[in-house]
């Protein structure tokens, strides 16, 4: 084999690419993104522009709307953080250990992806309401998990879990166990091994998982709506405010609130992407 490769020296040309040229692919990418993402979103912007600045401001800063931003973004943040911690644990167990029924557990992780969100919301409510399977034991202790912001967080944790597990899992599979063994041999404590060896290699994936779980949670409607209780100023999520505005045929007001959410989410995702790039570069330099 080696003789053959020496006999036929590689031509000094750029290797043939699998995909057609950059121009064509970029063109297609832009076209496709326009079709799927930008055109619907621009309709949103145009509809919003039928409002005057004052109307827009009044629509997006009403007291109920402001309270709903706090709940939606706050609950999504908490849920995404919880998912980062426990999603990492689940991914770790699935990658590092072999046990009976692992395939089943692995498949279970994807269920929140596949389940209609309304079903998730109704089941969670049935479980956690004061007369539910779990709720009936918590109620005497004064713990209420349904029909208040707690319920919102729980629903968002449920739907966000697969995002973290599925982004971290492949990266964990690729990290070499030998590195950890080497670290231990060199006298690292368990915490040092985790914080200095494992964590840096999976941090970008964790961050992606966090961003995806967070973004998904911000837009979630179906599962939350059944468990939230939907009390103005307390447990109304922003998507419910949008539905409420549509119910009064205030299309422009609804799109205005949607636009604010969109801008918020876009900025957040942009920041997270930038963080990731920075993190990758830093860890790339240090290793």
């Amino acid at each position, binding site marked *: 084999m080696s003789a053959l490769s020496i006999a036929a020296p590689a031509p000094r040309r750029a290797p043939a690419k699998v995909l057609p040229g950059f121009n064509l692919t970029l063109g297609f990418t832009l076209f496709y993104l326009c079709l799927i993402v930008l055109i619907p979103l621009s309709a949103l912007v145009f509809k919003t522009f039928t409002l005057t600045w004052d109307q827009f401001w*009044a*629509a997006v800063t*009403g*007291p*109920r709307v402001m309270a709903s931003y706090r709940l939606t973004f706050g609950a999504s943040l908490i849920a995404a953080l919880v998912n980062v911690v426990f999603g990492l644990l689940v991914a770790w167990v699935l990658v590092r250990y072999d046990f009976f029924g692992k395939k089943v557990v692995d498949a279970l992780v994807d269920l929140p992806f596949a389940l209609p969100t309304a079903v998730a919301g109704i089941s969670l*409510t*049935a479980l956690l*309401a*004061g*007369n*539910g399977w779990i709720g009936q034991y918590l109620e005497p202790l004064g713990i209420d998990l*349904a*029909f208040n912001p707690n319920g919102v967080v729980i629903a968002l944790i449920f739907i966000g879990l697969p995002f973290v597990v599925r982004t971290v899992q492949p990266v964990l599979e690729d990290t070499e166990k030998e590195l950890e063994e080497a670290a231990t041999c060199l006298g690292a404590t368990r915490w040092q091994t985790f914080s200095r060896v494992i964590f840096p290699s999976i941090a970008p994936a964790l961050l992606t998982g966090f961003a995806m779980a967070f973004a998904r949670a911000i837009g979630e409607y179906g599962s939350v*709506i*059944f468990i939230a*209780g*939907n*009390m*103005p*100023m307390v447990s109304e999520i922003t998507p*419910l405010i949008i*539905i*409420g*505005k*549509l*119910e*009064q*045929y*205030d299309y422009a*007001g609804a799109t205005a609130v949607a636009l604010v959410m969109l801008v918020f989410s876009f900025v957040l995702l942009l920041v997270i992407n930038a963080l990731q790039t920075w993190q990758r570069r830093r860890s790339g330099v240090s290793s």
Partner: protein
Amino acid sequence: MKKHTLIALAATLALSGLSASAQTLLNASYDVAREFYKDYNAAFAAHYKKTTGKDVKIDQAHGGSSAQARAVNDGLDADVVTMNTTTDVDFLASTGVVAKDWTKRFPHSASPTTSTMLFLTRNGNPKGIKDWDDLVKPGIKVIVVNPKTGGNGRMAYLAAWGYVKKKGGSDAEAADFVSKLYKNVPVLAKGGRDATTIFLQRNIGDVLVTFESEVVSVDREFGVGKVDAIHPSISIVAENPVAVVERTVAKKGTGTLAKEYLDYLYSEEAQEIAAKHALRPRSPTVLKKYSKTFKPLQLFTVNEVFGSLADAQKVHFNDGGQFDKIYTVK
């Protein structure tokens, strides 16, 4: 949005799968009217066959009342709309999809049936709830629909407000009354069925305020021994308006058929079907026949107390309105 596409898709599928011979009609209606229109459509088809010798096929599209109105406005090719809130048809009139004077096109302000707001309490009525006054007592938990997201909730709110006004109270007293009432609401349901689920399945609240049709059907389904239907002294008339979608019938040429379809809703046969589904018939004879279901109580219309539902919407439910003040002004 998702719902729209689904409804539109279902409608297209239904339309494309039809035989060419029978005339077809699409009725865009609200969620809980499903059973009523299933029976009514069969009755109408038989009646139409008998009088004209022609077959007719009626398709139904169901969804939240105002979601349906938006779908029709955005292009769902329904021939007729049958809603449970007049504002939904008003909206279609404002965009030119139905006639501006739609309330005059059919008898009784184009509402062949009505409903009203009643109470449902736990079996034996342990908290002794008899009338609206009992709902504002401290410690009573009331389940109602969020007026922001459902017509059911708007009617409950207006019924409570109208109760105070009808008893000679001022606007300020009415505002105070509804404010106290909503302070007793632990969970605001998204829609009528959601409220029923919260009250019955989740076992939350002492009393559920909802449409008479819902009260009757829950009473029937869950039977004696679980809930009690309570008739307050005064309640509101909630009209179930109907209209021909001019845009669609002009395109499809189904104007006459659509009108006949809605006209027949006023026939004794149709009124009786409505009564069986706990919708208050307009026909006095049918109403009398079903007086066991429709216990007489003092009723007032939205127009009597609020001018019109559109006015009520503006003052009470739009952003910054009276309902918002309950929660934002301390």
